């Protein structure tokens, strides 16, 4: 009897969880397999739940590596007209470039617009720039905050900096007290979107549609201010420049050679996954330092992805269903948060109790702090009218070139940004874009 009551209540609980989900389109009546390219950590576990809910669909996940590693394969597969997956993960910044290839299915044909209301409004603007055609389903977002080593800051008697002025002061203190053994921060010299998020938080705008063409302003004032700020600390040796997610980076982060870093909402999940037990419990998250003290927290967005369906998919309807389920169902959002630290693009997802659970990763890794609360606050401070251009893949690579020249002392930060602007503009024109 007791057993029956228990299972009944479990059923009820499950029922109430499902009730929060929107009504998804029907699954196919015949057995099909969908191929999905994604680098979301632990996605295989999420997918198992999907296969249970839709027994006719089998999901095959392929992880080809984060970002550009996957994009080059996707680009050639689209061009070849063969070999592309049904669903692929694409960051918002790279979405216009893929829409430009003509290889992405317009999901409005499969009823995607009916689900617009379930997503955080600005994310829908990223996947459907003209408000009609829908090129992807938003997956997660990357509002910016600061992760830091609580133990190190205590050791050097520093409070988590609230302003960039405090941050610079703290960086100098840590360098002096540790004899340079500990870097206070790390500048990702090969990740353009990371730097752009910093400028984004300060009102920087990099691309804008204008009439029949584009305006590109990579060297906007916010970008210049931010780059000058970081370059000063890099030159003093207070801030390192390790390549993100490399063996070297995780080693430094785990060994206490790095005190803080600016990371997007999906970042903490990465720390928990990549560092494992090393430095577990020592990390915390604080809001992004601000240029002026007081006032509301302003933030930018780094990455965050969407799920596209390719025109090569033989089952675009089912692929759309999968993309919707993956990003709107409570089950998926919960699993992706716990396994990969994905900060959902679903509006309801943001207030899911699962995100506030501190006994599970990624919060557990961050000393049991409710980190999603910090990121939710950051999310509200993101400027939502941010646009990307179809030639962004080039802009992304060219950034690393100019920053490298800056780090070698060949260019000042201002010159580096001007060169970034000039070379990217020349490239865009060369490839037939109308751009100023």
């Amino acid at each position, binding site marked *: 009897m007791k057993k029956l009551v228990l299972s009944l209540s479990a059923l009820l609980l499950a029922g109430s969880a499902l009730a929060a989900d929107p009504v998804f389109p029907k699954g196919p009546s015949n057995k099909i397999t969908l191929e999905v390219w994604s680098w979301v950590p632990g996605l295989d576990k999420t997918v198992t739940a999907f296969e249970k809910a839709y027994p006719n669909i089998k999901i095959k996940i392929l992880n080809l*590596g984060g970002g*550009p*590693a996957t*994009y*080059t*394969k996707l*680009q*050639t597969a*689209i*061009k070849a007209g063969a070999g592309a997956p049904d669903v692929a993960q694409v960051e918002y910044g790279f979405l216009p470039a893929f829409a*430009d*290839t*003509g290889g992405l299915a317009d999901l409005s044909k499969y009823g995607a617009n009916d689900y617009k209301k379930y997503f955080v409004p600005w994310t829908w603007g990223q996947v459907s720039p003209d408000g009609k055609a829908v090129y992807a389903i938003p997956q997660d977002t990357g509002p910016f905050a600061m992760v830091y080593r609580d133990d190190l800051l205590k050791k050097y008697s520093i409070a988590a900096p609230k302003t960039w002025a405090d941050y610079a002061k703290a960086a100098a203190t840590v360098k002096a007290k540790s004899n340079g053994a500990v870097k206070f921060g790390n500048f990702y*010299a*090969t990740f353009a979107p990371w730097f752009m998020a910093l400028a984004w938080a300060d009102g920087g705008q990099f691309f804008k*549609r204008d009439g*029949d*063409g584009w305006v590109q302003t990579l060297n906007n004032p916010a970008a210049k201010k931010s780059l000058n700020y970081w370059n000063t600390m890099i030159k003093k040796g207070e801030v390192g420049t*390790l*390549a993100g*997610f*490399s*063996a*070297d980076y995780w*080693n*430094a982060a785990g060994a206490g050679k790095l005190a803080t870093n600016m990371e997007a909402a999906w970042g903490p999940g990465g720390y928990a996954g990549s560092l494992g037990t090393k430095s577990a419990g020592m990390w915390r998250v604080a809001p992004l330092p601000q240029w002026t003290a007081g006032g509301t927290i302003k933030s930018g967005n780094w990455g965050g992805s969407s799920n596209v369906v390719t025109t090569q998919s033989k089952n675009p309807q089912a692929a759309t269903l999968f993309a919707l389920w993956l990003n709107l169902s409570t089950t998926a959002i919960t699993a992706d948060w716990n396994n990969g630290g994905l900060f959902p693009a679903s509006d309801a997802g943001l207030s899911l109790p699962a995100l506030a659970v501190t006994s599970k990763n990624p919060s557990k890794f961050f000393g049991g702090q409710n980190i999603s609360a910090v990121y939710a606050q950051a999310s509200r401070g993101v400027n939502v009218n941010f646009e990307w251009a179809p030639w962004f*893949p*080039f802009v992304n*690579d060219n950034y*690393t*070139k100019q*920053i*490298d020249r800056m780090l*070698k002392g060949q260019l000042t930060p201002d010159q580096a940004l001007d060169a970034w602007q000039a070379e990217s503009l020349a490239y865009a024109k*060369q*490839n*037939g*874009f*109308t751009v100023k």
Partner: protein
Amino acid sequence: MRYRTTPWFFLTPFLLAFTAFFIAPVGYAIYLSLFIKKRVGFGPAQNVFGGLENYVRAFQDTAFLQSLGNILLFLAIQVPLMILVATAMALILDSVKKGFAQKFFRTAFYLPYTVPGVIAGLLWGYLYSKNLSPLNQITGLNTDFLSSSILLFSIGNIVTWTWTGYNMITLYAALQNIPGDIYEAARIDGASNWNVTRYVKLPLLRPALTLTGIFSVIGTMQIFSEPFVLRPLGYVPDNITPNTYLYLAVARDGNFGYGAALAIIMAVLTLILSSFFLRNVRGETA
């Protein structure tokens, strides 16, 4: 009668595959290289006939020309150095009787050749990581081998490591083939060891040296895997080699016409650089 058709019977399998996977792709690449990307407003790009426009663009493309410059640097420094070391090792091994030590060194030297380029790049990527490198552990230094100012040399080192032993074996084999009576004559003339090397061995080694040189040129023109796998570890310029540049033109930018034009230019340049080899080989077999 049978003499007229028999050779074609033997040639057919090779020629079929050769036509399908050499002639046809080259022809197709030439065709593709005549198309450029054009677009109007926000619409997707159209491929339109552009004549030789892609070729004109290539020769005005400073990024591409720089990648050719990097190759020239390789040809001027890495290739001669590699062949010099390979020759020296081959001469040393050839100067003594075959024995255990000699066989051990020969084997040790060519082992790196068995490591695929992409695997070699991956392994050296770890050895180059600042905090991981045993070289830094031993010397106590903190050298960043992946810094863009020495990256080209770091890549050159991977290539040298992989191929020196292989070239050494080729040259060693050529030395072993020198008929003994030549040495007899030299000995009767009372030539010193050095003079035997200088006036007997090296001149006879010339054809083999030409061969290794040419294949090094071809290999250098094709460097791709090593910089490709080093890319996630730091800043590796798009145009570190012509091959990475043309790969990105296609796989990142989706510009197949331009990529094809670059491929054709590379093929022609390789042909020119290697033309003296062709003369050499034809002279032999005619």
